[in-house]
Structures are given as structure tokens and as C-alpha cells.
């Protein structure tokens, strides 16, 4: 009987309180719990965008790269803070690298596009105390890369006025002279959300089907997008 009365009372109270609007409600205890999640807490997840440039040249008599071969990455990471100085990070990203080759006068472009996924392990060393923010750091680590799609594209202008077309485009996919699995080391200098990055591929990107390899060093910047 008592339970029924309490239930009935609660329903009545619930109905009467519907006319009231809560304009402000604050739970102090909930707000003052120390979270273990945050940019400078025990755990943190984040996402990032990276832009890089391939540095260096092909060691070959005829094949040469243009100065602007580039790489774009988008990824996510998990950071585990072990102490105020040292954290470990596990990161996965999707990347696209475009190697742009020098071309003759009639060829408008010749480029290799490689789409890949990466798994990174990094050691992050933060400098100095900071609040709940990323802070300044040096990060060193290794990466494994799997190239899942390759494409070589060319476009050549047809100089013969009698021809029925102006340009010839070619598109080769599944390039057999590109190694699918690669590994590299990396270093990053971070200033909160911005980082300068350098990745150095230790494995050859090309197989012995061609007599050159593509430059191993990519230098770029990274923007942390937060959680």
C-alpha cells in the first residue's frame, strides 16, 4: 500500500512540476571531478590533418621530380600520458602522396599517386609544465605503411594539327613497381596544435622493376584538430 502511495505521489508531483521551467541547474560535484581525459591528462584521443612536401631528388639520369611533390594525411591518435614529460601515442592515418615528375615540353604532367594507410607508434617528450593543453614536444617514432592503391597519370599535348584531339591522357593503376608495404621513422616538433613533421622511409618504395627509387624524406606541418 505504501509503495502505491509513493508511486501515486511521485506521479502527482511529476505532473505539477511540468508547469515549471528550469532556467539554470548546476551540479557542483559533477563539475569538480578530476577527469583523466584531456590533452594533458592520462588519456586523450585526437585527430589531425597533415600537409607535407617530398624532399630530395631521384638518383637517375632522366627521371627527375618537380620541386612540389606533396603528401596529405588525415588521421586519429590515442595518447597515453605516462608522466608530465613522456607519453606514448598510437596513431592511424590515411595518406595520399603525389610524386610529380619533370616532363618534356609537350607532356603536361606525369605523376604517381599513392594512397596508403599508416600505423604509427610514437614517443612524445614534452618540454616544461603546462596546463590541460598539448604543450611543446618532440616526438620520435616508427610507422608502418600499406599502399593500397597506386595510379600513374600522364597528359600529353598532341602537336599534330591534323589530329582529331588535342591531348592524350593515360592512367595506369596497380603499379607493380611500387612496394605495398613500407616502414619509416619520424620526428615531430609540436607547438600545441601545430607541429613540424619529418618522415624518413627506411624501405625502398620501388621494386627492382625500375632502376630508381623515390625520395624517402617528407617534411611538413600538422594541425591537431582535437577530439
Amino acid at each position, binding site marked *: 500500500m505504501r509503495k502505491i502511495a509513493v508511486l501515486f505521489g511521485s506521479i502527482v508531483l511529476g505532473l*505539477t512540476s511540468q508547469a*515549471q521551467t528550469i*532556467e539554470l541547474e548546476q551540479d557542483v560535484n559533477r*563539475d*569538480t571531478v578530476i577527469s583523466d581525459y584531456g590533452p594533458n591528462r592520462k588519456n586523450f584521443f585526437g585527430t589531425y590533418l597533415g600537409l607535407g612536401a617530398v*624532399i630530395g631528388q631521384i638518383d637517375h639520369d632522366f627521371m627527375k621530380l618537380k620541386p612540389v611533390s606533396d603528401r596529405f594525411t588525415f588521421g586519429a591518435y590515442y595518447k597515453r600520458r605516462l608522466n608530465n614529460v613522456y607519453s606514448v601515442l598510437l596513431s592511424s592515418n590515411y595518406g595520399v602522396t603525389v610524386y610529380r615528375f619533370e616532363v618534356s615540353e609537350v607532356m603536361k604532367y606525369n605523376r604517381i599517386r599513392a594512397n596508403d594507410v599508416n600505423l604509427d607508434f610514437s614517443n612524445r617528450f614534452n618540454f616544461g609544465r603546462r596546463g590541460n593543453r598539448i604543450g611543446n614536444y618532440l616526438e620520435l617514432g616508427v610507422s608502418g605503411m600499406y599502399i593500397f592503391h597506386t595510379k600513374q597519370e600522364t597528359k600529353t599535348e598532341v602537336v599534330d594539327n591534323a589530329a582529331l584531339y588535342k591531348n592524350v591522357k593515360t592512367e595506369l593503376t596497380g603499379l607493380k613497381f611500387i612496394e605495398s608495404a613500407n616502414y619509416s621513422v619520424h620526428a615531430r616538433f609540436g607547438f600545441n596544435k601545430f607541429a613540424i613533421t*619529418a618522415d*624518413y622511409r627506411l624501405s625502398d618504395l620501388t621494386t627492382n622493376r625500375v632502376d630508381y627509387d623515390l625520395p624517402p624524406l617528407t617534411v611538413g606541418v600538422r594541425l591537431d584538430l582535437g577530439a
Partner: protein
Amino acid sequence: MKKLVTLLLIGVSFSVYAQDKVWVFFSDKDATGFDPHTFFDQKAIERRLKHGIDLYDVSDIPVNESYVSAVEGIVGETKVVSRWFNAACCLANEEQKAQLRKLEFVTSVKTVNPGATWCAGMEKSGEETGSFEPSEDQLEFLDAQIKRMNGYVFKKNKVKGQGVRIAIFDVGFKSYKTNPAFEHIRKANRIIKTYNFVKKKEEVDGWDTHGTFVMSCVGGIIKGQEMGLATEAEFLLARTETWTEFYSEEENWLAAAEWADQNGADVINSSLGYTFHRYFREDMDGETSLVSKAANMAARKGIVVVNSAGNEGSDNWKNIGTPADADSVLSIGGISPWTGIHTSFSSFGPTWDKRLKPNVTAYGHVIGSGPKGISQTQGTSFSGPLVAGFVACALQSRPAFSNMKLFHEVEKSGDLYPYFDYAHGYGVPQADYFFTWPSAPKPTFKLKETGTSITVERLDTSNLESSSGEAVHYTQWPDYVFYHVENKKNYLDKYFVINPATSWTDKKGVYDDYITEAPSPLVILKKDYAKPFTLRVFYKGYVEEIEVK
């Protein structure tokens, strides 16, 4: 591979030779030749005498210059020298730190938190209209920001901050030399001193408009309309903030506080604050940051320190910044002129150690004056100066009060007092408290306790309004019920603002005809809170509490 190694070496070298900011603390001072009457402004002397502070207090004696010279001989230059803490701040690498530690008069060398910081408590000032001719709407708004504090009561009693000296710390005071809002101040030569602690020179006209807006909310007048209450106060203007040198704000704040003390400031207004860039929320205990220590020291010198609570209320940080966390700092939150209660961006209290903050509130949306004209702007940056002007007037009307007595009286003048919460503090301070405070408010509700609940039953409150229909001061809050639950450790677990019947608040509006039912009672269930607790309720100026065992 060589390139990668080179990059790494550059990075490692950078970290090895990087300089840290350090404070070098000295063992003693040389009081020989120290004359407080020449060192301090006369007003600083008077403040010391009023507060019973020894004119030869060791913390007021300047740092031994030979010690500073010795430090500069090692590190090149010092950034800030503090007589209050008998220390000098400078940049030093590991080798220099070791040399500093070997000096016989150095007691310690402490590395300062070198994390970059922004002045997180600041809002950039609003869009300017390009005109100093206020519109009708702007004049109405300005009138409201004064009336909300019953500020015209000060004016009626000829209290406009005369003889009170207010120091404003900010990022820049662009156009203060020409701005029409300060013409009355300039004409009377009431800008006593200025100093740019970033550039180490006197010029503060420039860099940013934030300080200009802030100053207008302390004591500006535009076309005869007051923008703040202390229109006849004296001013010290200090530039302490910079958008580009991330490391120096707190040191500059300390230096400015010592300067303000030396130059006779009675009130400091600082619309500045520091949060997650260098601190965790658990650091907001009023003791951790340098700037909270500096603010407390300023209060110990008899200065009323007014600081904005911060604009993190709707961000992850949510809580007040520092130095608003310092116990002797009057921390000011913001309310919305439109909703009448806490405005969303205003940082919430309490401090990490559960002390009440903010202490009081004022409009967080104001009309201020910038270099190109007057405009509406927002931020607790502007609630703070509204209250700083109020404090100056309160101090003028109660000259015998010590700074901390005045601090508590300003809290008591809050129109929620003795009710409080961590969004509004004790409410908006009311000028009439310092003149003709009404007798105890009449009950506006009854608390009825049953075994499972407490009911707030509102009474007829029509008699609270004057014959002219004008509301008396404590009805400036909307017709809302404020209640909080205080635990046995004497801090709040929860607090609420309830609109007991939405239609009821519209009684003067378009819904007049639809009101047919009496307002429903507010029912609070005991099971929702850990016992024992105290339930305290505010409604239309009346406060009642009930203890639940």
C-alpha cells in the same frame, strides 16, 4: 637519413640551450635609506595608516639593487623585480641557473611554468558603431546597466568616486587621450599615471581597445549619460597584457600591482584571467598561481582587487580563472540583461577548494566606448569594471571601511544576499545598501516540509511593488525561484533557478488574457540529495532555509 638526423640534432640543441623563465629569490633587503614618504604616493601612505600597515614593512622595501645587478651580470637582463616577494624574474639556461644558485644572497631559483598562455578571460571588444552619438536604444541600455546596481542612488548622494584612485590593468587603452567618454576625466587631470609593463615605458594609448572599453565601464560618460559609476575617480592605467609575448602576463600583473600600490591605488580592476593554457582546474585554489598570490598581496596592502570571473562558462573549462580564484579578490560574474540571470559565457564557481566565487555579478553585456565610437560588447571583462566603479563609490561613502570590510559589505549589498550560488554569487550589488537599505523583506513564500518533500508555496507579492508600479530594488530579478542545496561541508552540491510557471512571468506581456490558474508550487524531493543538507530558497528578496537531517 642525414637530413633527418640533422633535424633531430637541431631540435635537441634547441631544447638543451633553451632558456627557462625563473624567479630568483633573495635572502634579505637593505633598508638603509628607505623613506616611505618619498617612495610612496601620499595616498599609499594614507591607505597604510588606515589599515594599520607598518610603513617600514619589509615587503615594501625595494629589492637590493646590487643583487639585481649581480643577477643581470649573469643573465643579461631581468624582466620583473618584485619588492613584495624579494625576487627578480629573468630568463636563464641551465648553466646560468647554476651560477645564480651559487650567489650567496640567492635563496632559491625557481623555474616558472613556461607553458604558453593567452589571456583567456578576455573578450575582444565589440564592433564599434563609428559614432559617439548614442542611439535611443544605447542610452536605454546604458541607463539599465547603471540602474541594475541602483547606481543612481550614488549619484543622488553626490558619490561619484571622488578621491578614490582606481588602477586598471589591461592589454591597451587605445584612444584614451582623445575618447569623448573620458573627456571629463582628462579635463580634471584625473589620469594620474600610466605605465606600459610590456614595453617598459609610459605610453599605453594603443595596442588594443579592450582597456578603453573597460575604463568606460568604470567611469565613462557619453552625452551626459554615465557608462560606469566612478565618473569622478582618479585613474592609474597599466598595460600588462600582450597578445604576442606569451610568458609575461602574470609577472607584469605583479609588477603593475606593486606600481599601483606605490602610486596610491585604492581599487584595482583587472579584467584578465588565466586558465587551461597553463593551469588545470585543480590549480584554481587561490594559492597556486603567481597572479593569485600577487592579488592577495595587493589586498594585504589595503587595496580592493576586483577581477572578472572569466568567459569560460560554456566551454570545457567552465570554471573561474586565476586570479579570480584568490580569496581576497572580489570576483565578478556576468548576467544577461535579457534573461535577467547568469549569462552563458560567465565562468562558474566555486574555486577548486569550494570557496564561493564569483562573489557578485553585474551586466555581462554592456555599452562601452572604443576608439571609433560606442557599441555593445560582452564579457565578464565588463561586469568587473561596472563593479569596480561601484566599489569606488562604496569606498567613498564608507571611507573608514578597510578593504576587506568593504569587500564583505559589497557582498552583503548583493540583491540575493544572504542567498548565493556559484553562478551569481550574492547577486548584483545595490547602491542603496550604503544609504537607505530597506527593512527586512516581507515573506514572499512559505516552505512546507513533509516526510518526502519540501514545497515552496509562493504568497501574494503584489504589495512588494510601489504605488507608482516601479519595482523596488530586490525585484529586479525575474520572477524566478532560486534555491540551492548546501551539504554538511558547507558548500553547495546543487543549485537551481526555476521559473515556477512560465505563463506567470508573462503577466505583463501578451499572454495576460490566458492566465486563469494560480501558479503551481515548487516541490523539492528530499531523496534527490544526500542528507543532512540545508535547503535555502530565494524569491523576490526573501530568503528562507530549512535543515534536513
